[in-house]
């Protein structure tokens, strides 16, 4: 009788073991779920919303300006989890051009982000170095020099990462008599030798209230860019002294400033 009972118990253990194993989620792509994620960029100058050809803004050095153009590349987006691991958006879907002149471009919609909780968001302001060396067949969409609103230097092959233009009474007039400021920041580090690299990675901590992504959720991340920081940043920029910076060593200071102008809001 006891022998029979032992056998029954043994069989019971085996069956439950098999049952537990079969209840585990099988690994493999068919089993992971994913969901969408929306990243919304908004632009301010200090406490005021940014309007193109709109109000006059002030720098913290007593200079004033209006804005006529703001465009920048957001690329190579990654989402980090609590354990430090990251989901890197595949490159073929990770190049975006945000243009204040076209508000629709300020909303980036990612799909197929693996289900999970994310505590960090990072992106590159600009186009990564490797892409800058690729052939014309690898430059589609916003990477196509004919479709990216002039965000490309054709005479010094490379993308312009950040364009910020406007007018300022403190800016000395350019040869055409215009008191403008023009900041075009590019330079990816060079083709055949090491040269200036103005690429900057922005890392934002999402904090306690982690971003929850899944098939039934529609999470939104709001990223605010304070363009006032372009002047008031770690490298002070005076419109009266350096109103026009393009291919110049001074562009590194502008890049350092705008790299720190992004914050997460509403979270």
């Amino acid at each position, binding site marked *: 009788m006891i022998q029979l009972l032992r056998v029954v118990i043994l069989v019971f253990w085996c069956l439950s073991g098999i049952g537990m194993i079969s209840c585990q989620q099988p690994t493999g792509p068919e089993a992971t779920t994913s969901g969408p994620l929306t990243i919304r960029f908004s632009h301010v100058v200090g406490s005021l919303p940014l309007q193109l050809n709109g109000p006059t803004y002030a720098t913290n050095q007593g200079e004033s300006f209006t804005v006529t153009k703001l465009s920048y590349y957001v690329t190579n987006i990654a989402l980090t989890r609590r354990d430090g691991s990251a989901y890197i958006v595949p490159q073929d879907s990770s190049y975006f051009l945000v243009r204040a002149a076209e508000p629709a471009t300020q909303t980036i919609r990612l799909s197929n982000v693996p289900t999970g909780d994310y505590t960090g968001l990072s992106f590159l302001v600009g186009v990564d170095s490797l892409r800058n060396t690729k052939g014309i067949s690898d430059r589609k969409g916003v990477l196509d*020099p004919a479709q990216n609103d002039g965000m490309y230097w054709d005479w010094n*092959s490379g993308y312009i990462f950040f364009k910020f233009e406007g007018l300022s009474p403190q800016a000395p007039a350019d040869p055409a008599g215009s008191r403008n400021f023009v900041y075009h920041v590019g330079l990816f580090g060079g083709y055949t030798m090491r040269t200036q690299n103005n690429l900057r990675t922005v890392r934002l901590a999402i904090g306690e209230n982690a971003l929850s992504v899944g098939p039934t959720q529609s999470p939104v991340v709001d990223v605010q860019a304070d363009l006032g920081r372009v002047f008031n940043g770690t490298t002070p920029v005076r419109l009266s002294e350096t109103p026009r910076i393009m291919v110049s060593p001074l562009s590194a200071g502008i890049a350092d400033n705008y790299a720190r102008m992004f914050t997460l809001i509403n979270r």
Partner: protein
Amino acid sequence: MRVHYWLRYLFVVVAALCLGVASCQKETGDPPTPALPATPDPKPVEYVPTPYPWKKPTNFPDPIYDFTKNPLTYEGVILGKALFYDSRLSKNGTISCGFCHQPAFAFAHTDHVLSHGINDQIGPRNSPPLQNLAWSRHFFWDGGVVDLDLLPISPIQNPLEMGDSLANVLAKVNNDPVYKSRFKTAFGSDNVTSELFLKAISQFMLTLVSANSKYDKFIRKEGVELTDQEANGLQLFTANCAACHSGPMFTDGQFRNNGLPPNQNVLTPDQGRAGITLRDEDKNKFRVPSLRNITMTPHYMHDGRFRYLEQVLNHYANGVQDSPALDPLLKRNGQRGLQLTKQEQKDIIAFLYTLTDYDFLSNRQHHPN
């Protein structure tokens, strides 16, 4: 004689049979037509372009351009040539690539100090010739472009040259049914993208190979001999010039300063390579040009300051100015420039004449139709 009734019936039956068979036949000679397929053939007729037999000259190294990403076809080359000579690629329809890059002069803007572009504006630099581009690592005097496929965007969009935008030029090409059909033939698509447009122009430019000068035939031992003066010039060239103007391309492709004094006649000094790299050590350095077809491509230097080769040789012998940027090869043994007598300078020039490739200059396939 009475005909038997059964014979009459037999006749009718046989006649009927004959008529029936006859009516079943079509006109004589036609085979029976097959039934039409139920669905149309899903594969449309595809045009297969003809590979262009691009050959590397035997005395040249392997090309740098990656032909696998843009295999040459006759259709692509001829289309690229049409674009090259089409002045609609400029804003007001007056400037084509061929305007500054003239085939009879190795695709340089000969007799021009500086090129004039759209609306007669003058640029800051002398247009270089277009030859042997498959072997170039850098393009332009300052090496600002590395990929031949990306080069045309620059002159098209330069406000002093063609004054247009790539987007606008593509719109013009896409509005031209003749171009659309030619792109369809060459690349299989009549949606002319940046990629196809630029690759077509590259295909034509890659065919501009100059390797048949007197010097080339001499080097390849094709039964051509140099004169005594030319041979002496070659020896002097090898000893004095070939360190920079090296190899079959007559350039090492590097950026160097050759002691030109600052040009007093320009408003803004030309930074040369430093305008691209922002490195101090690159100030006033320019790409060493090839010397092939040099007799056909005056003026000389990045700013076209010299009209005659005699002036160039005189500069190297007597005019080299020292500066931190001056190339070490021009201050050897504590002496500035090259130690060349007047006669030696003449001999070198005689040698340079052997680099003229008349086949290349007169090749009808490169000239506009």
